[in-house]
Structure formats: structure tokens, C-alpha cells
């Protein structure tokens, strides 16, 4: 019995030292990890709104509830972004939001730029873990020739045009990767719908206008 106690103490001591060292390193690296996430979002925003000199997030406070429905506290959630040509928030050039679609083997996250008339601008796929060579090609952004999938083909499309060819729309899907193509396209369409409903009161664009 004595032996077991002695062994447990040695093991616990080593584990405790390890946990302490790790907690310290966690404390040091955590801000950098958050920074990386923000940098990634910022980079995507700059790609989908190239003419914006200032990008401002529009946030909303949401209730955080526990399992019983009691409100515990409120936290801010980014709903979409506004892009301005001038640093003094004049000259609105467009908007951006993030869309999430369930792809073949991962959630595909897309940053979507929207112009002031409610039509899609540029898009950038932020993260995906689809099949290499097939669904993973959704990130390709060559100029649109009409024959092959590219993220550039979304520019200028309105809500009614956000359907893949297999569903009767104009979006050319990836050969052999219908699921991924659909995931991206449909997630953009659905998010655009909710986005337009959100900004309708201030900006007088509606879903019908953008079609």
C-alpha cells in the first residue's frame, strides 16, 4: 500500500509540474491565437471588399442562456460588416458576411461580399476540409470562362441566380464534387436572404430588388 502511495505521489508531482508549465505557455500563446483568427477574417474581408478603406463590424447583443432557458448574460455577435471608401465612415461601398455550409467532409466557411444593390460581389472561401482534388477545388479563383467552377463566377449574381447547374441555376459546379458546390452556393443564398432582411429597414434593398 505504501508503495502505491509513493508511486502515485511521484506521478502526480510530474503531472502537476507538466500542467503548470503548460498553463503558463497557454497564457502566453492564447492572445496570439486569437490574433491569428482575427487576421484571417480581416484578410478575407479585404479580399471581398477591395475598395473599402475602412471596414466596420455591425454587432448585435445576444442572450446567452443556460439549459433551462434562464438568461445568464449578453454577448456581442457580429452579424455582418460594412465597408466604407473613407475613414470617416462616409461612402458606403458594400457589405460582407460569413456563410457556413455543410460540405462533404467539413463545414465550408465563406466570406461573401455584397454590393450596395444587394448583389453578390467577390467571395473568399475561408476554411474547408473537402476532398483534395475534388471538393477542395472550390477555392479556385481563376477568371470565369463559363465552363469551370471558380469563386469569381459569383460576382454580380442575385438571389435567384444562386443555384448550381444541377438545380437549374447558372452556377457551374465542380466536376465530381456536386455536394461541395451545392454547399457553398446554397449557404451563400440562404445567408444572403437573412442578410437582406436584416438591412432592409435602413437601406431599402429587398430580396426582390436583388433578383
Amino acid at each position, binding site marked *: 500500500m505504501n*508503495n502505491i502511495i509513493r*508511486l502515485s505521489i511521484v506521478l502526480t508531482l*510530474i*503531472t502537476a509540474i507538466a500542467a503548470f*508549465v503548460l498553463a503558463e505557455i497557454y497564457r502566453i500563446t492564447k492572445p496570439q491565437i486569437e490574433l*491569428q483568427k482575427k487576421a*484571417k477574417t480581416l484578410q478575407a474581408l479585404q479580399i471581398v471588399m477591395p475598395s473599402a478603406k475602412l471596414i466596420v463590424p455591425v454587432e448585435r447583443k445576444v442572450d446567452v442562456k443556460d439549459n433551462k432557458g434562464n438568461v445568464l448574460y449578453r454577448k456581442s455577435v457580429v452579424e455582418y460588416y460594412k465597408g466604407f471608401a473613407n475613414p470617416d465612415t462616409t461612402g458606403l461601398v458594400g457589405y460582407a458576411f460569413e456563410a457556413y455550409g455543410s460540405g462533404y467532409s467539413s463545414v465550408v466557411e465563406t466570406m461573401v461580399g455584397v454590393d450596395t444593390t444587394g448583389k453578390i460581389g467577390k467571395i473568399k472561401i475561408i476554411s474547408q476540409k473537402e476532398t483534395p*482534388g475534388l471538393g477542395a477545388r472550390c477555392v479556385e479563383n481563376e477568371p470565369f470562362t463559363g465552363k469551370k467552377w471558380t469563386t469569381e463566377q459569383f460576382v454580380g449574381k442575385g438571389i435567384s441566380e444562386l443555384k448550381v447547374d444541377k438545380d437549374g441555376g447558372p452556377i457551374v459546379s465542380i466536376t465530381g464534387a456536386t455536394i461541395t458546390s451545392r454547399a457553398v452556393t446554397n449557404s451563400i443564398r440562404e445567408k444572403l436572404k437573412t442578410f437582406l432582411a436584416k438591412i432592409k429597414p435602413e437601406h431599402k434593398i429587398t430580396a426582390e430588388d436583388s433578383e
Partner: protein
Amino acid sequence: MSLSAEFIKGIYKENPVFRLALGLCPTLAVSTSISNAIGMGAATTFVLVSSNTIVSVLIFILAKVLSEEGQKSVNKIRIPMFIVVIASFVTIVEMVMSAYFPALSESLGIFIPLIVVNCIILGRAEGFASKNSILPSIMDGIGMGIGFTLALIAIAFLRELLGSGAILGANIFGADYKPVLLMILPPGAFLVIGIYLGALNWLDSRKKHS
């Protein structure tokens, strides 16, 4: 063995992947591109060298501090001790990678935490570092780590070249190259390593005859 011999053996004669058949899971999964191979190799080498060092030091200290009887009983928990040490360094790698190399962290994905069960690391800790002093253990770690990295790069070289038409991301064959998709999908990994192993065996048999 001299220090340089400890180092060299990990590269060819006792290459962990091609000779000892250790560390197969990350080797096949991560060798889709040379940059992934280098990243994984570097991470694994760091854990290998660090854990070899700490294990060697730990055993040394325990040998000095404990009685004969104490040492025997600690011997029973040596594997969990080594695992805690290895897992700690792997966690450090996880955190540092997501902080400073996020793209690599995303490509390597689940195989970063899986470094902890890479049989190379526990194998060397148990088989070498616990029985040798610090400097040889460090050299052994570096040698094995580099051997592992070279094996990864060798496999990734073929897979990236034929499967994506590129080396380190730079297109070699031009835009019209139709890549052999199979190479970067799972079957490609198995086939490439099978061919390499067969080739090595053939080289060995030729050396024996000459």
C-alpha cells in the same frame, strides 16, 4: 557508440519509417505535400529531442535520489511518466503551432495531437533515453527525427509531384498537367511507401551480393 554514430544511424541504417516500421500513421497521412512533410517532421523532431532529454535527465535524477527498492517500484510507472512528458511537449507544439503557424496547423489537423502516440517517440524514450546519458539521447533524438523527416519528404516528393504537379507549391509541369489524383488520395500513400520499401529491399540484396 560515438555521438556522431548515434546521430547517423537514425537516418539510414535504422531509419524509423523505412527500417523500423514506426510512425506509419502520420507518415502516410501528412505526406501529401513537401511543406506538410517538413512541418510534421520538425514538430515530431522537437518532441522527440525534448522528451529524450527530459526522460534521460529524469531517470538520472531518480537513480541518484531513490534507493534500490525505490527505483524498482518507480520502474513500474515509467511508461505513464514518459507519456506525461511526451504529451506535455506535444501540447506545447499544438499551442505554438496554432499561434504562429496557423496554416500548417490546419493542414496537419488531427495528426498534431497524434504525435503523442507516434511509436517512434515512446519507443526511443523507453528503448534508448531511459538507458543512456543526456548527450547520446539528444543525438539519438535528432538523428531519428531527421530520419523521420527525410522519409516523410521522400514520400511527399513523389505524391506532390505526381498528384499536384508541383514541388513546394510551385508548378513544375505547367498548367495543362493533368494530375494523378490518386497520388494525393489515400491509395497513393500506400502504393508509394510499398514501392519504396520494395526498392530498399532490392538495394540491400544487391549490396549483400556485391
